């Protein structure tokens, strides 16, 4: 049992005043009487500080993990906010349903998936998770319980989707699933030698493949710059097997010494990974687990980064001169020689998110992590941020421990509208960081028009 409350990147390290486990929807302490700001904590799979609340109170919602209702005909599921995507898959896959959108790990809660309005490999077709939420119950610190949906308390709904946990505590949510013919994915892997080829394959895959993503070798330089493997797939027809199969194979039981991930080992890993494809193109049938959650096979893999932890970087560069900008970013990273092996490139589609503060927008998104090595890492981040900023790009709060208030304001110009919906007793380390120097006391606090009727059950 873990008693530590850290984020997945294990950086920054902060102390909390108290942690209150939330076990029952009908037994929640009066949040406005607590003497420090509060924040919900799910599975802590955010990398930076959106799920941290230094010197504040964390509400650990993992015990709030019960299903409420499932309609196997319509594919609509209602559950408490601490239910994990893993729990859901075990329930729905054998019945022929799947998540409408899933991030690269199934160890996240429904509350966390909504609060960061997560995206997956099908963003270009399906948009974000929030699009499938049909309703949710939000507990404000005043004790008021508000049912929010695309038609009820719409403003608060939009602020809560992608609202980084700041609008209150989500108690339960209801969302739509998608049907699947099998638990398998028909996957095609294509090796590309440079970034231009990535963009060609990506454009050609857009229509016919529901899932697309690419792994890039961020350490290869010169003529190999931007080489990688493009992965695309669809749910397989004609393989009527519906096993949710989910046992992690390995655990990283201890923190690795800081020297394990050195530039040499990472370069070697990347080269091996790239050459793993013996042919230019390979097709295979894979279970959805390794396809969507390759990292979940090793529990607590974040420990390979040692005690110092890691910094994640995820940006989106808007359509326009995105090719040049992505190239410049990859070049800068390759030159540093510090990137790890988990670099991912994907083109977002233009399906709009309901969330006021949702991160995805049309363009190209690049994600990777760096072992935290002090100022050297921070300098590299400054350079990367400058490149993204110039291109009018944005950073993803769920993966961030570094963006400045200016970066945040430029990435999310609507942030001041959002601030109205932030619950006066909720806050986070992230929120304080990106609003530093702003006077929020003059922001009028949002009140729901009328006290909402609680749901039938």
């Amino acid at each position, binding site marked *: *049992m873990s*008693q530590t409350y850290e984020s997945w990147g294990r950086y920054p390290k902060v102390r909390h005043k108290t942690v209150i*486990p939330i*076990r*029952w*929807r*009908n037994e929640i302490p009066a949040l406005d009487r607590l003497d420090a700001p509060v924040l919900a904590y799910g599975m802590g799979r955010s990398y930076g500080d959106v799920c941290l609340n230094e010197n504040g109170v964390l509400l650990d919602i993992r*015990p709030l993990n*019960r*299903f*409420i*209702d*499932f309609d196997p005909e319509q594919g609509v599921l209602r*559950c*408490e906010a601490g239910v994990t995507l893993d729990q859901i898959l075990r*329930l729905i896959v054998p019945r022929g349903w799947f998540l409408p959108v899933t991030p690269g790990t199934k160890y996240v809660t429904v509350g966390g998936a909504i609060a960061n309005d997560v995206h997956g490999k099908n963003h270009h077709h399906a948009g974000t998770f929030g699009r499938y939420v049909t309703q949710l119950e939000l507990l404000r610190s005043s004790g008021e319980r508000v049912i929010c949906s695309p038609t009820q308390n719409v403003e608060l709904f939009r602020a809560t989707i992608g609202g980084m946990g700041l609008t209150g505590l989500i108690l339960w949510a209801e969302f739509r699933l998608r049907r699947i013919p099998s638990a398998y994915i028909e996957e095609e892997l294509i090796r590309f030698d440079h970034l231009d080829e990535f963009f060609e394959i990506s454009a050609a895959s857009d229509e016919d493949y529901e899932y697309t993503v690419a792994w890039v070798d961020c350490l290869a330089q010169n003529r190999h710059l931007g080489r990688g493997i493009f992965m695309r797939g669809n749910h397989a027809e004609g393989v009527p097997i519906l096993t949710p199969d989910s046992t992690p194979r390995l655990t990283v039981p201890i923190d690795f010494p800081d020297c394990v991930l050195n530039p040499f080992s990472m370069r070697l890993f990347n080269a091996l990974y790239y050459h793993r494809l013996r042919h230019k193109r390979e097709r295979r049938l894979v279970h959805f687990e390794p396809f969507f959650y390759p990292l979940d096979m090793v529990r607590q893999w974040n420990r390979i980064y040692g005690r110092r932890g890691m910094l994640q970087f995820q940006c989106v560069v808007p359509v326009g001169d995105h090719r040049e900008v992505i190239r410049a970013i990859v070049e800068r990273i390759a030159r540093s020689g510090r990137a790890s092996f988990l670099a991912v490139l994907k083109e977002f589609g233009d399906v709009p998110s309901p969330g006021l503060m949702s991160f995805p927008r049309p363009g190209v998104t690049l994600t990777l992590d760096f072992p935290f090595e002090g100022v050297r890492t921070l300098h590299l981040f400054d350079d990367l941020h400058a490149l993204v900023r110039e291109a009018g790009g944005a950073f993803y709060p769920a993966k961030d421990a570094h963006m400045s208030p200016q970066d945040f304001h430029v990435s999310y110009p609507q942030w001041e509208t959002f601030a109205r919906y932030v619950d006066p007793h909720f806050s986070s380390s992230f929120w304080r960081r990106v609003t530093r120097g702003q006077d929020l006391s003059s922001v009028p606090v949002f009140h729901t028009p009328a006290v909402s009727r609680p749901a039938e*059950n």
Partner: protein
Amino acid sequence: MTNVLIVGATSAIAHAVARHFAAAGDNLFLVGRNPEKLTAVADDLRVHGASQVQTYQLDVNDLERHADMLAAATAAFGPVDVALIAHGVLPDQKACEQDVYEMLQAFQTNAVSTMALLTLIANDFEARGRGTIVVISSVAGDRGRQSNYVYGASKAAVSIFSQGLRNRLARRGVQVITVKPGMVDTPMTAHMRKGPLFASPERVGQDIYQAILKGKDVVYTPWYWRLIMGVIVHIPERVFKYLRL
């Protein structure tokens, strides 16, 4: 299909066990004192696949209502096949040393009500010549310790009582399983610092479900508590009495 009766159904451990029965499509009769919590658990078990779920509100210290409860459970789905008794409280040891009423109250909830339920259920099962009775005791009942002997004694009563019952019913086709969990991360232990010996309720629930399927007698869960208690029980009393355990 199995008809399962669970007393203390809102317990974290009981819920973890119940999810296994639900996934197997069994019928569940849930008894507890808080109707909102019972509803939350019942909904979850329905989604997990339970055929039918009914709830029944009861404070186990209402001994006169036990027979009505058992009759209602039988009326709901027919004779009960598996009865799991899971309710319990972890009293404040220091308070119990100062206040006789506190001490007796813990005994009432953990031991008296449980033995009352066991007696009724045992007679019902004996008459039918079948059924499985599962009762959650604790490793704390294996030896009295200064830090926790009120709880320990109440659980020791449950352990010995169920052991005798097992002996009485062994030749009558009725299985009695005594479960002895170690430390489990549930609301009951919310105030304690969690060390590496703490197990999740899911892990313990899985062990209990397996024990029921296999028809075990005494189950330590997780298994290593059998070793730990094996050592603790064998420390000579003249040494043990000076230990701070």
